């Protein structure tokens, strides 16, 4: 079905090849997982399969790519599109219309399918991804998991022979992630189709008995049947980070907090205290108020009722710019928080704004850049960095103010295990030195390795507040299997 011979590709303006002498043969109906660290060329390979790589970027290519006999380097993109469907990471980036029905119909309308034939095809595509009930909904009203299902249905509607998923669950919570992998399983069962999944979360995919292709630095470095060990958590076997004993007066006091976001109530009557030395993991389904909670702690959302105080400062009466002197916030998307023209300018951005850029801070920032693997790159533009490097720069930049409270909103999205470990070690070091961290995360293995406390949100309230050793059994008892560590045995769930 797929034959790639000696494929190399270099993006315009880059000196290093994104793909290097790739050779890959995939038979019809095969299930292939492509894995590897960030920037290793996985997504570039996906674009090569669809032909988009050779049409949208004016790069330098060598070698051949054939899918179902079509040469994707030479064929019009539309002809390849009849054979290969690509589901991208973020459904928001691939929607072309405003409603579910229009989105699934989009590709069919472009192929000039008569309207009478479209209705049953749309119904079939939505049914195969378990989203038939969403047909009349606007896309903006869907959850993240529902959006990704609709994105899959929109591609499936054309009945491609090859379906490529590029990290389809990177923006989803564990429940939605499990649903998407169930959907892929269902598609495999119902449609004779070749499936290629680019994914870090290998444990979810082992049940398919996939062929595993590992990439590194643009090359295929391993290719064979996936083994049980491939699904092990990258955090397994790491010594647990030391947990300092929390002490002193509460650093964060939240009392009877009600707060809304975008005009709707989100958190209801929430009370919690956090002390210095605590590493708090905030978990829960998307939309349950986790990010809203973080925004409220920095005073970026004001309480409708109740009170939030950080280091004794009431967020209702203290401007965010003053709260920012001791509370740092790292947002989900690295690109949304790079403002300066150079790596050094970015690192020093917050200390300079807050009048804290003295000789000591300057030296601290230089050391932190070195620890983050960014030494010698101070004059580069931040947007020239890789995704992982940008995230490390975000972290250095907020830590430069020496915050007492660190707020982290899903900072591990799109990060490979090595980079994630580097980031987590930076956070753990801050907690060791007397700070406190509150981190929204969907990775239970990270929580087990680093956190001293879990706050599990459900319906705008804290459903579980316990150390990980107690929180995971409670989650198991509540039937929240996707929120348990990879190696959590089902029988450990208390009855």
């Amino acid at each position, binding site marked *: 079905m797929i034959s790639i011979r000696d494929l190399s590709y270099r993006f315009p303006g880059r000196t290093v090849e994104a793909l290097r002498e790739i050779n890959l043969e995939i038979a019809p109906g095969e299930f292939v997982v492509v894995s590897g660290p960030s920037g290793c060329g996985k997504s570039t390979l996906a674009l090569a399969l669809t032909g988009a790589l050779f049409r949208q970027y004016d790069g330098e290519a060598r070698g051949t790519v054939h899918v179902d006999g079509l040469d994707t380097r030479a064929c019009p993109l539309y002809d390849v599109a009849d054979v290969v469907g690509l589901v991208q990471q973020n459904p928001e980036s691939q929607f*072309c219309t405003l409603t579910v029905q229009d989105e699934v119909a989009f590709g069919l309308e*472009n192929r000039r399918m008569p309207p009478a034939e479209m209705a049953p095809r749309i119904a079939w595509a939505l049914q195969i991804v378990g989203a038939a009930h969403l047909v009349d909904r606007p896309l903006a009203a869907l959850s993240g998991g529902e959006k990704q299902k609709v994105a899959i249905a929109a591609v499936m509607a*054309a009945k491609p022979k090859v379906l490529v998923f590029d990290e389809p669950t990177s923006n989803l919570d564990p429940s939605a992630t499990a649903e998407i992998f169930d959907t892929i399983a269902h598609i495999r069962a119902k449609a004779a189709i070749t499936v290629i999944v680019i994914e870090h979360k290998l444990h979810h995919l082992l049940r398919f008995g996939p062929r595993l292709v590992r990439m590194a630095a643009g090359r295929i470095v391993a290719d064979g049947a996936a083994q049980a060990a491939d699904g092990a958590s990258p955090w397994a076997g790491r010594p647990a980070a030391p947990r300092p004993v929390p002490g002193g007066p509460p650093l964060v006091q939240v009392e009877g907090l009600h707060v809304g976001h975008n005009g709707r109530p989100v958190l209801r009557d929430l009370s919690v205290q956090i002390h210095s030395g605590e590493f708090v993991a905030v978990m829960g389904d998307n939309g349950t108020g986790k990010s809203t909670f973080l925004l409220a702690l920095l005073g970026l959302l004001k309480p409708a009722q109740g009170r939030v105080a950080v280091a004794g400062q009431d967020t209702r009466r203290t401007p965010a710019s003053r709260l920012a002197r001791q509370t740092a916030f790292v947002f989900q998307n690295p690109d949304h928080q790079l*403002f300066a023209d150079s790596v050094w300018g970015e690192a020093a951005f917050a200390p300079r704004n807050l009048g804290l850029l003295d000789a000591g801070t300057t030296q601290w920032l230089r050391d932190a850049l070195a620890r983050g693997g960014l030494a010698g790159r101070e004059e580069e533009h931040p947007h020239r960095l890789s995704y992982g490097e940008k995230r490390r720069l975000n972290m250095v930049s907020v830590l430069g103010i020496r915050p007492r409270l660190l707020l982290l909103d899903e900072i591990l999205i799109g990060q490979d295990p090595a980079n994630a470990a580097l980031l987590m070690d930076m956070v753990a070091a801050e907690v060791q030195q007397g700070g406190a961290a509150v981190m929204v995360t969907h990775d239970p293995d990270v929580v087990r390795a680093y956190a001293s406390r879990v706050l599990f949100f459900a319906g705008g309230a804290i459903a579980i507040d316990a150390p990980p050793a107690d929180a995971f059994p409670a989650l198991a008892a509540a039937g929240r299997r996707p929120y348990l560590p990879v190696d959590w045995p089902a029988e450990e769930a208390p009855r």
Partner: protein
Amino acid sequence: MKPRLTYQPGTSFLHTMHPLVKLAWLLFLTVAAFAVPSPWLVLGIAGLTLALFPLCGLRLGGLRGLRLLAGTALLLALLQVLFQRQGAELFRLGPLAPTTGGLSAGAYVGGRFLAVVLCSYLFVLTTDPADLAYALMRAGLPYRFGFALVTALRLVTVFEQEGQTVYRAQLARGVQYDVRSPRRLLTLARQFLLPLLISALGKVDGLAVSMEGRCFGKYPTRTFMKEAPFTRFDGLAAGLLLLAAAATVTYLVVV
């Protein structure tokens, strides 16, 4: 919080009217407000439009920008009343001497402004922009232009949310929105827009792959799944529009 000046879903007769018939009415009323020489007719158009708001389930008090609209209309009218010298003098107050001509011109200019803006408000609030785009494409607008509109509509909300995130990320790192000089304003604008621009470029790439990967642009024309039925009511509204247009032209010729 007052709702934004965007489509408000509803089931009124204007909500269900064919978007192109509604668009034709909007164009007619806008042209008529400028063409008819009588201030009373212009005020009549504005008044009639105003009366349609409650009939469409729209609360005037809930509209954003209503005060600005009323204030601007009043200011435009007042300027004419104070400085237009034609006609008989009504009274004198120091250097100010309002005239009948000024009063008429004030009603005309203020009424014209109100009529055009209120008609546009009503159109925007009762028309799903996606329905309008699809109707225009079915009526012959090249679909590449139509989808430029649909994509823009979708991305507006995405960029609105991203702009909010960038703003918050800046506040969290001590940025103070104090505009002390044009240079400071430029720096703030650049720091705010750069992340949005980078994000937009990434989205354009993703969207292009998604659209072409689903054969957008393969043929010069395309089919459409959804029907846009032209109902008997739409026919009636179109007929009334023709009558109104004919009556207006006749009036203009006779007067």
